[in-house]
């Protein structure tokens, strides 16, 4: 999500599932939607069957997605920057980009400040001591008016720097890095290049096959750059479509169960930010062009103050900076890897896990088990026993040696409570409570609220360290120990404290403490008229429910922001407001207002008016960012090898991996001599991570752990399907059966034969099938992306032996 926010201004799938049917070309990378999102995949098939769209699948494995694709490219895992880079080079070199769109909607013409450099794999601004870049050094040239200088022909224009950066990504180089034969690549490049025309649209679909790398953010940004160049952002059938893998990962990212943000993607303050002014100076973007709307930056204070007012009520006043001092200010990264690193170092006392099992899901499971053993206490809230609740008696662990105190609290299921799920496409869909809680099970939020209220009572009774925020946090629910989700939904929406009315839009939020909103991007989903996420005007009556015929179904649920179905849709129309393709309109200017989808733009801003805002309203540029300093590892994406790789980087062998990967010491990386094969992990259709080990029908369909081994490697090793094999990395091993397959073939990488081994993730030591105690993540490396700190689950080195 970091990468889309750094490029377009918001971190979310830009279009929605049904919209994919409008595409002419579907580029699928780092995803296997036919198996991992089968029902969403129907919209790709509709595009193919109904409008003859072409589907290109680049993946290490030939999957069911590849089976129906028009072209399958076997790619080495983690090298998609080179693949997209080659496509970008093809588009730039042959001037196939959508020129009018690029000028209207991207920062191609922005002049970059002197000092920018890229040499032998290193950008300017590197601090060798701290092993980080100072991204502020990737700046624009500013004119006497204080705004960025525009000159698309300047040698340091973004477009020209981009040409220089990408001219190294020739088809030969793409082949050397990715293993995709040059002729296959060129065939795909030709198809992609054709979508730079106004009447053609390409979509890019991806999932965690792009995010789970030390270069994950740049893998995604590469696709985003290609989409901007081809004019495919903001348009129906276009976009960057991130397929989220859990029912409500989107909603709970929006609501900031993430160390680095507050609800609505406000940044968590840093220690040096001692008041709201300091905080805004570092967090809220400033406009870089006179008619950049810079909506987020300009309104940041309103969103923050409304949040503080929601959380601290009467204790948040103008004269105490709205209790800004109550917000915790982390000194350093506090994401997943850092939680377990702190535990390994004995600095973490307690961990609460809810519907998520650390033992199975994090990288380097053996180290995670050690980390859990180091805790004073662990509280697992779940419907089923998990590999975390049972970690103290995991195979190989002697329970009497584990001093961690463990609680397992029975939680209700999704079907035993109401509330909303936000899907990948940002549709907030309310669900009804179908069943009463089973037995003694309680809702997660009741457990948390009750625990919090008991902590409050302890502080009231005994005092303690800095009790004020615990005592002052608002709990304005009929029963603070058992809040209703409907009450919380209203709190998230927010209200005008003067009138007491719920707000219909975040445009009404104020920075003076007279409004509340728990998450500004959800403001408007629950206005006075009721909860719009409950709406169900669906496809049985398309004439009434889909007035544009574009499949927006505006009265089915509600999507953030403001029920907009396609983000950045101003860019779906030309400078005059006419849709680039009238057969697939997003929004259109009718002479007085914008019509169609809910405009991502002021509703009555006349495109003929020179003063009207630039198209990307969320960025300080007003434009989509081809060049961006919103990422930690470079303003343009660059191919770096995974931290464990079978080859040196053909582009710059002395800077093979990214210099800014988030490494924890001592590292546990293996060498290519000991571990000669590339491995990648993935899901199967029949399982959802680990919880489905408790579902009889699904366990019956996929009963046993296995690894997929390429046929040629299997012949070399004398391995047949069904044989027991040991797969090992520097960190651990699996002993499971082999499935010998031609789905994984050998690749030629920089002249060297490279094999990839496939590892489904779903098994552990808890579930219906006992004895399946192999954790796939025992193999994966404990290292994170520089910007997002996402671990490198998808590319690492292993060895394989027949047992």
């Amino acid at each position: 999500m970091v990468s889309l926010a750094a490029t377009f201004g918001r971190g979310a799938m830009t279009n929605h599932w049904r919209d994919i049917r409008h595409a002419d070309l579907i580029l699928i990378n780092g995803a296997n939607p036919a198996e991992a999102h089968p029902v969403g995949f129907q919209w790709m098939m509709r595009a193919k069957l109904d409008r003859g769209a072409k589907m290109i699948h680049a993946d290490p494995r030939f999957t069911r997605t590849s089976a129906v694709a028009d072209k399958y490219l076997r790619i080495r895992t983690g090298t998609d920057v080179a693949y997209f880079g080659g496509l970008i080079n093809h588009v730039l070199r042959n001037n196939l980009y959508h020129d009018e769109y690029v000028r209207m909607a991207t920062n191609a013409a922005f002049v970059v400040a002197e000092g920018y450099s890229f040499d032998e794999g290193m950008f300017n601004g590197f601090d060798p001591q701290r092993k980080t870049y100072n991204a502020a050094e990737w700046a624009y040239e500013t004119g006497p008016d204080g705004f960025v200088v525009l000159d698309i022909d300047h040698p340091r224009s973004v477009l020209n720097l981009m040409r220089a950066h990408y001219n190294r990504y020739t088809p030969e180089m793409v082949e050397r890095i990715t293993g995709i034969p040059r002729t296959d690549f060129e065939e795909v490049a030709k198809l992609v290049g054709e979508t730079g025309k106004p009447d053609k649209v390409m979509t890019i679909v991806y999932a965690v096959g792009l995010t789970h790398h030390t270069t994950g953010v740049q893998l995604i940004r590469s696709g985003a750059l290609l989409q901007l160049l081809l004019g495919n952002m903001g348009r129906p059938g276009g976009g960057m479509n991130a397929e989220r893998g859990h029912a409500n990962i989107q909603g709970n990212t929006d609501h900031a169960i993430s160390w680095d943000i507050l609800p609505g993607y406000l940044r968590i303050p840093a220690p040096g930010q001692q008041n709201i002014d300091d905080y805004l100076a570092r967090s809220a973007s400033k406009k870089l062009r006179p008619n950049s709307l810079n909506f987020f930056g300009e309104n940041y204070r309103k969103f923050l103050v409304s949040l503080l007012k929601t959380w601290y009520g009467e204790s948040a006043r103008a004269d105490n900076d709205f209790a800004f001092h109550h917000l915790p200010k982390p000194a350093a990264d506090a994401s997943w890897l850092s939680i377990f690193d702190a535990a390994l170092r004995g600095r973490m006392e307690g961990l609460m896990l809810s519907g998520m099992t650390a033992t199975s899901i994090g990288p380097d499971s053996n180290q995670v088990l050690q980390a859990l053993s180091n805790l004073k206490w662990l509280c697992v809230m779940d419907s089923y026993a998990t590999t975390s609740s049972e970690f103290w008696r995991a195979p190989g662990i002697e329970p009497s040696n584990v001093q961690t105190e463990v609680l397992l609290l029975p939680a209700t299921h999704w079907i035993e409570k109401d509330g909303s799920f936000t899907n990948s496409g940002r549709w907030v869909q309310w669900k009804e409570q179908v069943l009463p809680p089973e037995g003694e099970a309680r809702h997660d939020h009741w457990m948390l609220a009750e625990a919090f209220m008991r902590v409050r009572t302890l502080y009231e009774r005994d005092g303690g360290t800095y009790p004020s925020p615990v005592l002052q946090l608002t709990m304005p629910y009929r029963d603070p120990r058992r809040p209703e989700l409907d009450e919380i939904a209203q709190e998230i929406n927010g209200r005008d404290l003067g009138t007491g009315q719920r707000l219909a839009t975040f445009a009404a939020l104020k920075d003076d403490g007279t409004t509340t909103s728990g998450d500004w991007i959800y403001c408007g989903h629950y206005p006075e008229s009721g909860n719009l996420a409950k709406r169900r005007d669906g496809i049985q009556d398309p004439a009434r429910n889909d007035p544009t015929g574009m499949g927006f179904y505006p009265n089915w649920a509600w999507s953030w922001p403001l029920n907009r179905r396609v983000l950045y849709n101003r860019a779906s129309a030309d400078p005059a407001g006419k849709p680039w393709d009238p057969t697939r309109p997003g929004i259109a200017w009718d002479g007085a207002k914008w019509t169609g989808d809910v405009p991502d733009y002021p509703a009555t801003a006349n495109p003929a008016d020179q003063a009207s805002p630039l198209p990307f309203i969320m960025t300080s540029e007003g434009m989509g960012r081809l060049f961006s300093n919103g990422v930690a590892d470079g303003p343009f994406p660059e191919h770096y090898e995974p931290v464990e790789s079978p080859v040196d980087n053909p582009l710059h062998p002395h800077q093979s991996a990214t210099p800014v990967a988030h490494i924890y010491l001592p590292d546990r990386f293996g060498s290519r001599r000991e571990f000669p094969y590339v491995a990648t992990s993935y899901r199967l259709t029949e399982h959802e991570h680990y919880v489905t080990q408790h579902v009889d029908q699904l366990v019956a369909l996929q009963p046993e752990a296995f690894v997929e081994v390429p046929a040629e490697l299997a012949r070399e090793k004398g391995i047949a399907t069904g044989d027991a094999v040991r797969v090992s990395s520097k960190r651990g091993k699996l002993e499971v059966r082999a499935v010998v397959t031609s789905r994984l073939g050998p690749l030629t990488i920089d002249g060297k034969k490279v094999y990839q081994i496939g590892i489904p993730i779903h098994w552990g030591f808890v579930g219906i099938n006992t004895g399946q105690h192999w954790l796939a993540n025992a193999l994966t490396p404990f290292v994170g992306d520089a910007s997002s700190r996402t671990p490198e689950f998808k590319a690492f080195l292993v060895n394989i032996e027949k047992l």
Partner: protein
Amino acid sequence: MFMDVSRRHFLQLGAVGVTPLGFDLAEATKVKQRLRIEGATVSRTICPYCAVGCALLAYTKKASDGHVELLQIEGDPDSPVNEGRLCPKGASALQLAISRRRVESPMYRAPGATEWAKVSWDFALDKLASNIKASRDRTFVTTDGNGNVVNRCEGIAFAGGAAFSSEEGYLATKLMRGLGLIYLEQQARV
């Protein structure tokens, strides 16, 4: 001739009357549904697995003793997302909902113990609250080495939420930040 009839066409034929098989499929379907879900309450929910967000219809009946029985879960044919379709996981959602494998009561495992002990909610929540308070008091930093007010709890982490309702997730964030937590994570990264 039958082999050339697509499934969709087949169903359409069924809808107007007699199918190529020679019987009225619509009637047959109706009878089956009558047996299964006649008089049932229909509720709208959403699939708990991936993030496509398939809409589900859940059929329940309340017995005279108050027990609510879940009879059937199927795709909602009115949804613009799934149009009634489900994958193997969604189609077996009933087995996730109703299971003999659920955790039955709060469980406690003391340091070094080799077995779980069944405990009351009151015991479990008191234990959790006192652990939170003790760890918070021990690891809370009000001012850092540079004199900055930071008000953070460094010794407790919370992770979870990808299966929460959004409103639960929001409350979790609010409560954890209220306690001063900085280590917060869900499944966006892992």
